[in-house]
């Protein structure tokens, strides 16, 4: 199967005074296209740092990340930004909407950046907002929306550029159980319909159980890497 993400000997060391701390330590794994993956681990295990490195948001101390066949290590920050815009979608724990933009404007940003025609972009953004159930709140600002609604806007934004891979960092972490479940459904459904690869960082094992593969991180290293059988996956 084609590998959309290859992580090779990935290491990230943080320096604090004279002390060095390897938050991610020689990690290796591949992610297959179209798969649904969870990265789990206790707080401080290095899972968010790993996500940042995989998504090209941070530069590793050593090792390499190859995304969609592009080695990210050799790229400049601006070149990595282009890769993110073209291939990656993001959903964050804290939603990360731009407060000065309305819901629809927030959703439109990734495609507008590409210079696509505004009519097309707007239609697509409306379509996605309808899909996440916010068709009537397109012109609301983030502060006028509830947490769950903000996360739905963030999901619509994540899918607008038809990403090859979606990185989600604790997407339900800031939401109540009911809203969290609703958001989970949205992400999984859209991921399926858009045929996106999903990499989900969570410490919610219940959520992780819903994925095809669970990579468990402990002290910056892979502690275990469990894949479900095709039968198990189809039962999900």
């Amino acid at each position, binding site marked *: 199967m084609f590998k959309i993400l290859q992580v090779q000997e990935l290491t990230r060391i943080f320096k604090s005074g004279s002390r060095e701390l390897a938050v991610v330590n020689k990690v290796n794994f591949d992610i297959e296209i179209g798969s649904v993956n969870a990265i789990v681990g206790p707080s401080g295990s290095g899972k*968010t740092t790993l*996500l*940042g490195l995989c998504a090209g*948001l*941070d530069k590793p101390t050593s090792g390499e990340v190859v995304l969609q066949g592009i080695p990210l290590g050799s790229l400049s*920050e*601006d070149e990595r*930004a*282009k890769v*993110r*815009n*073209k291939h990656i979608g*993001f959903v*964050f724990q804290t939603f*990360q*909407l*731009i*407060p*000065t*933009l309305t819901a629809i*404007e927030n959703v439109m*940003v*990734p495609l*507008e*950046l*590409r*210079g696509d025609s505004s009519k097309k972009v707007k239609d697509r953004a409306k379509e996605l907002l309808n899909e996440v159930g916010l068709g009537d709140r397109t012109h609301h*600002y*983030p*502060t*006028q929306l509830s947490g769950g609604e903000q996360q739905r806007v963030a999901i619509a*934004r994540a899918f607008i550029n038809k990403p090859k891979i979606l990185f989600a*960092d604790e997407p339900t972490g800031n939401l109540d159980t009911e809203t969290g479940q609703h958001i989970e459904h949205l992400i999984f459904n859209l991921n399926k319909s858009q045929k996106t690869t999903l990499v989900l960082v969570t410490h919610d094992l219940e959520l992780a159980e819903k994925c095809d593969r669970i990579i468990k991180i402990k002290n910056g290293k892979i502690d275990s890497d469990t894949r479900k059988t095709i039968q198990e996956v189809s039962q999900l």
Partner: protein
Amino acid sequence: MSWKWIFAMAWRDSRSNRRKLFLYMGAIIVGVAAQVAIMSFRENLNESINNQTKELLGADLQVQRSAPLQPEVVAYLDSLSPNQARMIEFNSMAYFPKNGATRLSQIMASEPEFPFYGTLITNPKEAINFRTQSNGAYIDNRIMLQLDIHVGDSVKIGLNTYHILGGIIDIPGQSMAASFLGPRIILPFDGIETSGLLERGSRLLYTTFVKYPPNVDAKVIVEELEAMKDTLSFGFDDVAERQNEIGEAVNYLSNFLNLVGFIALLLGGIGIASSIFVYVRQKISTIAILRCLGVSSNQALFIYLIQALFMGFMGSLFGAILGSLVQLYLPVLVQDFIPVEIELFISWSSILLGLLTGIIISTTFALIPLLAVKKIPPLFTLRTAHIKLLQVLDNATKSLLTLFLIFGIVGYAWLMLQDMLTAVYFTIGLGVCLLILTSISVLIMYMARIFIPSSWTYEWRQGLANLYRPNNQTTTLLLTFGLGVTLISSLYLTQDLLLGTINFEGEDELPNLAMFDIQYDQNDGVNEIITNYGLDVMQNVPIVTMRLESLQGRTTQEILNDTNRVAKRWALNREYRSTYRDSLIETETLLEGEFIGTVNSLNAPVPISIEIELMKDLGASIGDTLIWNVQGIPIISYISSTREVNWQTPEPNFFVVFPKGVLEPAPQFFATTVSTPNQDISLSLQREIVVAYPNVSAIDVSQIVGTIREFIDRITFVIQFIGFFSIVTGLIVLAGSAATSRFQRIRESVLLRTLGANKNQVIKIQIIEYTFLGVIAAFIGLFLSIVTTLIIGYFFFNINFTPNFTIIFIEANVLILLVLFIGLLNTRGIHARPPLEILREEGT
């Protein structure tokens, strides 16, 4: 790069912050307004001078001498043109029989042909038509109003009585300020000799005005006159020369004002930098999200640069409009000092230059924090990190920006001052002030951090802790407001310092009435009148006029011809008015040599005492021989001592003092000083003396002090008017800085209220913080201004400055209240509304 999207994003991003950005704009408005107003005004003034060139002199050429022109000069002028007008100028007492008023006046006895260009404007207008009347006089309109004199009344000048034909409104080439030195009186040239004033000690100036016939080469005439002037001892001025002189004066004044205005612009720049800092800091997460979604570092920079540029442009535009309006007011302030009628027009070049300066300053200062935008990583979406914006910039970028700013300031100052060294000093001075203010703010923050006693109440600890917490306003306020206060207070204190030197009122031991030109045969009579009033003659000083003939064996002419001479022209050429006495007086200090008070023999060289500055300007030293021409008789002298003289007193002081026993037989006149108990007695005494001895001039010290005070007040008002711009900028910057940190303040106060603090406690914390800020900014600004004034007093005016603490106390209180007012204005409305409602609104 999709510019369309960048512009759209810049527009969207600015949505909730436009109010804050408007204040950012305000910081630049005032500075640009000052620039445009002054530059436009200069343009207007230069244009007016160019349009009224010939009126500056009233003729093409004027030739002057302190005695009638030599026949050779008269012949030369006759050969140039038949269009000539003569004038004799001197100071004399004018006596108005109608009400007995007297006033030392500037008399101009002129032929009716003057002025050849421009018009003598009188009140009533048609009064000028009677100018040929042999006994008609024109008097400054101002003085006519003051003394309640009307057309048809008479004025007595010397022995002559004239009918007043009209008031003088304007004399071509003279500014209103000329009348400050004493009312100007125009009399007919013919018959002035019968006044009895031409021989009797008065300083006279004989002027011939010439109007050239067509097609004359003025340059050739100037060259020919230049060749003659030293041997025939006269001076001259032509239109081009006068235009240059006035043009230079105008440029000096406007460049100085411009520089004062430029400080306002720089303060605005600092305000911009600080508000953009806070703005960018609030935008870090937005920038990180955008970077995460694929925005390049340059695109992120441009989203914010466009906002800064737009605001800078709008601020500059409003500034230019405001400046063009202020320009209309400036002539009102300075018209009295300018010898031309100021024509007003819109100066597009000044507006353009103002716009350009405003945009460059705002962009440069905004770039310092904005360049940090490029360095904000997308990783901040995953974890909140604290970032110090200045630290993310590499040293090369920081150095480049700093150098650009320094060169920019030096360059601008050079453009304004036309002198590189002064421009560098200006920049260094400004840099030192900013450095001192920054260091003090750092020190205050440090002290507040470590020295707040834990025993103080919660409100005090919180209020003072706000001085060093993130987003504090300590540095911004001290820099902008502190510098503004330093500037304007220095101007104010310097004015106070200058006025202090001439404030003799209430000092009984000093004379307040000085009488000059008392002839030898009038001296006893004048003294008698004074004694009849029950007053004491404080000084009765003999004065002998003389000229320097030779110095160390070389004639003054030989020295003048020497191109390598050290001696200054004025010192060699002037007519000296010297006295003789046997001792030094209170205003003199012996510096070197021995003061010899009496000589018995006329055969040996006479030991004289010379004032120190004159000795320097003559290039002479103790023991040098000088020969004086005392009205035809040579007197050989040598310098036996040198003195320092305090000229800032009403007593008559002298460059050269002879010993007793030499000059007594020479023709001489007297100066007498008296201390009168009040203005009524002073006026009555002056009247009696003038009626009895019309040639005697009286200088009323209180009138002179009043005149100088008015003059200094007007000049300093102009400077303060421009300096005021920097205070306004400081206040706007403070308001801007307060507004940009409003959200944080609100969050804090909401949090405090949530935790149980009541409204009064929250307000008290803010009052403590802003009062403290105000106190520090005001006192440091005032302290620096006292130091500046001390330096100015010591180096430029040679005066020891004693600060007027009443003024400083009042200034300080006003400033503290202003800071407090603006600080509290910023938190308006947040105490009465529910905390969450405010947070939601402000958070967008």
